[in-house]
């Protein structure tokens, strides 16, 4: 071909097709899935890692609190959404995970708490309550997956089946484009829509290739039990309360979170 008459757009098409043939931008579905799992797990880990100070303080306080307040903790453990002790129940759950040193035990705890959310959702009558429970259910499942990996796959499947039997077919993984959210019937269990990010993107370029994360404000739990609540009412137990939780060693408050998965706590 006479180079003098070669169309530059032809050159570009040829080169583009050649380079894409030499380096196709496609990957095996296995690599793709594996990578997505790694990134999702790392993002959840990072999210939890960013709240260690609050988490450890809460864990320490709650560890002390529920050691001293066995009776109260039991009452809180039976509380249903809307009850004054319910926030304490969730704080205690987070603390129990935070102070559990074995990842497998922590994963089973997360599953137990996910099951609690199912039980609570089965008696919830208000849509906002059900949505909140659904969101927390998914957080526990995510945390259990991260902590337990393949060891808890069967249990997660069992929970999914339970969830399905109880009247919902919504997925538990909660992808961004989960169009099924709009199909949730009132008070049924499903992941609640996430709020749209409030900050608009700025047009400023990103400085530097290697940013270091800065600490972000940590959400505080609604209740931090630092002293014994006296005269707490007894509330009916949820169905799961009859099943004993795995044995947990509750350290004294000075216990620091271990590196890595120690920070795994599902949000409340």
């Amino acid at each position, binding site marked *: 071909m006479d180079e003098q008459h070669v169309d530059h757009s032809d*050159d570009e098409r040829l080169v583009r097709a050649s*380079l894409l*043939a030499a*380096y196709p931008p496609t990957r095996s579905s296995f690599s793709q899935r594996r990578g997505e799992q790694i990134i999702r797990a790392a993002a959840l880990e990072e999210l939890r890692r960013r709240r260690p100070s609050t988490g450890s303080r809460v864990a320490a306080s709650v560890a002390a609190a529920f050691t001293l307040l066995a009776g109260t903790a039991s009452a809180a453990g039976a509380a249903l959404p809307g009850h004054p002790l319910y926030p304490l129940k969730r704080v205690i759950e987070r603390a129990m995970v935070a102070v559990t040193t074995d990842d497998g035990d922590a994963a089973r705890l997360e599953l137990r708490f996910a099951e609690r959310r199912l039980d609570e959702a089965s008696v919830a009558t208000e849509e906002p309550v059900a949505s909140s429970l659904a969101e927390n259910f998914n957080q526990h499942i995510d945390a259990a997956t991260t902590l337990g990996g393949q060891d808890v796959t069967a249990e997660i499947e069992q929970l999914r089946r339970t969830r399905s039997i109880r009247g919902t077919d919504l997925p538990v993984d909660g992808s961004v484009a989960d169009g099924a959210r709009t199909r949730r019937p009132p008070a049924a269990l499903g992941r609640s829509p996430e709020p749209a990010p409030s900050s608009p*993107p700025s047009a400023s370029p*990103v400085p530097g290739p290697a940013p270091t994360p800065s600490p972000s404000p940590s959400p505080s739990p609604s209740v931090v039990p630092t002293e014994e609540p006296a005269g707490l009412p007894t509330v009916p137990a949820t169905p799961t309360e009859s099943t004993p939780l795995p044995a947990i060693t509750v350290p004294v408050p000075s216990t620091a979170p271990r590196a890595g998965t120690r920070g795994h706590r599902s949000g409340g």
Partner: protein
Amino acid sequence: MAGTEQPFDDEIAAGVRNGDSDALSEVYRVLSGPLTAYLRSQVRDPQLAEDLATETFLKLVRGCRRLEGGPFQIRSWLYRVAQRNVIDHLRARSRRPDEELTDLPPEEVTADGDPAEAVEDLDTLSRIRAALDQLSPDQAEVLRLRLIAGLSAPEVASVVGKTEGAVRALQHRGVATLARHIRRGTVPLHTHGTTDSMSSEAMVSSL
């Protein structure tokens, strides 16, 4: 943003800046393919390219809250980090002179019809890879980012630290040279490893 349409929107970008796992997973889903292809074109070892891609996205997970801007800035940032990972890898490898370059295994041609017909045999693919190594480091890098990764000219300018005009000029000359090599088949296969070593070193020193 001028140039190539972004593969994810402002809402996903906002989620990334907030560290949302769904948003980060979505960015991985749409960008990991092109990013890994770009890395394969740099390091020649598919598994290493996978590892470097994962490392790049993990840095995104750890650094996302420091990011500003939308899809343009996030994608540019990712490729800058990928580029830096390649340079770090090449530097580390240069300190291990006994390590042999890994030859690329044969890959399937997945493009449908049209120009891909011209490049469907493995010899041709190897020649294309060798031809890319014949370009100047700047030209090759611009072609990798523009044509393999699919970045827009402004994004490439942001990644390589040059003006958009300079990027377009490098692309123009690189395309012309590469097209000439491809049409004539003038790049011998046996120069492959040698030129890669040279261009890798040139790349390290030029960045």
